């Protein structure tokens, strides 16, 4: 009898272990199993690319328009009876350069219940996003100045070739723009199928620069191949800026000297936090005050080319 009962128990245990026989699984207990929420990842924005490359004129005092006069040069005479020459800041084309300061900022209203209910420190998240948005705004404002430069290389449907860069260098040099020269381009101007990197493909002609036997230096191509990047090309310090606007594949970068543009900061970035009793939440506001303008138009060359094939 005992043997029969143990045999029966053995058979039943197999039967009870079959699927669908009242097992407790993560599915049956879903409602009791918590979901872990990790700290949020914030959307990335392009940073402060252009500001360090342009002339800076801090403007803390009174006034909202920052004016930079440009004095015309004198002409040396070969005569023992010299004529008076006036120091004139009114005849130089584009003088004075005026930048009007404005307020730029973002504001977020954080409901207290959202702050209490969120895993993340929502105040810190808001602050970081506000800060990022202000930096992006500044970079975009400076990038937009590229299109107001009157010297233009390329066109809306043109691919960049080495001669365009040499021409830009030539224009800056003729205008006596002081070194170094910067080249700020959209990432597509550099790495796309029609970008700068294609000039260093293994093709032996004058539009490609690969190795000494082809007539050009190979180390820049090696930098692109090794690092995906070269800090200096064709005499320009190269920078990439995703804040450059692209319209129908075309974007406008710029080759320029420092004094082509000016950035006029009036008040640095500040966060203000105010609690609103009736709204039961915090108004978090980040603001900064600055102005930007073209300083010397002939120290820049707009580079308008395709950013993709």
């Amino acid at each position, binding site marked *: 009898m005992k043997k029969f009962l143990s045999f029966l128990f053995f058979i039943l245990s197999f039967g009870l272990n079959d699927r669908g026989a009242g097992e407790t699984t993560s599915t049956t207990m879903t409602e009791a199993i918590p979901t872990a929420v990790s700290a949020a990842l914030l959307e990335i924005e392009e940073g402060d690319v252009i500001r360090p490359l342009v002339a800076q004129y801090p403007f803390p005092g009174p006034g909202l328009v920052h004016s930079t006069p440009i004095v015309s040069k004198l002409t040396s005479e070969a005569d023992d009876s010299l004529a008076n020459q006036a120091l004139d800041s009114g005849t130089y084309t584009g003088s004075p350069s005026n930048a009007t300061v404005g307020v730029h900022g973002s504001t977020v209203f954080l409901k207290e219940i959202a702050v209490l209910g969120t895993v993340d420190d929502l105040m810190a998240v808001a602050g970081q996003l506000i800060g990022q948005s202000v930096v992006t705004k500044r970079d975009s404002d400076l990038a*937009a100045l590229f299109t107001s430069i009157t010297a*233009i290389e390329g066109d809306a449907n043109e691919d960049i070739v080495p001669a365009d860069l040499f021409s830009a260098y030539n224009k800056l040099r003729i205008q006596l723009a002081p070194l170094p020269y910067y080249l700020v381009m959209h990432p597509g101007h550099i790495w796309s199928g029609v970008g700068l990197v294609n000039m260093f493909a293994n093709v032996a002609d004058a539009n490609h620069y690969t190795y000494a036997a082809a007539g050009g230096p190979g180390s820049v191509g090696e930098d692109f191949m090794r690092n995906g990047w070269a800090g200096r090309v064709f005499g320009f310090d190269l920078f990439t800026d995703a804040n450059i606007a692209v319209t129908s594949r075309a974007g406008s970068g710029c080759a320029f000297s420092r004094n082509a543009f000016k950035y006029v900061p009036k008040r640095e970035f500040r966060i203000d936090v105010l609690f609103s009793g009736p709204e039961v939440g915090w108004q978090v506001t980040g603001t900064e005050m600055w102005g930007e303008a073209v300083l010397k138009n002939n120290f820049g060359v707009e580079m308008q080319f395709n950013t993709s094939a």
Partner: protein
Amino acid sequence: MEKDQEKEKPLGKSEKQELEALRAENVKLRAQQEAEAKRAGSHYEELERIKNKANAAQLKIEYKDSDDHKNITLYHKNGLYIGKPVGPLHPSNAEQAFHAFRRLGILLSLTRPTALEISEYKKSAEYKLARSQFDAMRADRKKSRKGSEIERLTRLIAQASGVPENQLNNIKGPNEVVATNQAVGV
């Protein structure tokens, strides 16, 4: 033939009744299905109405940009780059850009030129001249400075043999190749 005749045989009374019953059931099931769909639809609509009515503001975090000015985009109204945008710029920078381009004979405007205006301008002598100069410049920049060794040799062979250059290197495309017996003169 016999099988076809069997198929054309008229339905018996019981078969007719069965067919009618099936048709009636089909209509009933369709009606049931439509009613279910309507109920599901109204159920969904009710959920939406509840959400809208509830207006759960604690789930929303308002965000607003604040600038004390509005940036302006200007457009080229003439010249090689007609229709090209300038900006968006601070209003004072827009004025300075306007003057800078005006000195070069380029008019900027708040109004974007229409496709018709652009196409009309492109027929003008002024634009055609600027465009032809630009295209010539681009063609010159894009061509290889070194030139091709094959082209040089072809030129020399053509001069020595008296055969025109286009016949020396006249390689036909795949759609131009014909069979030997179809070739001219064979």
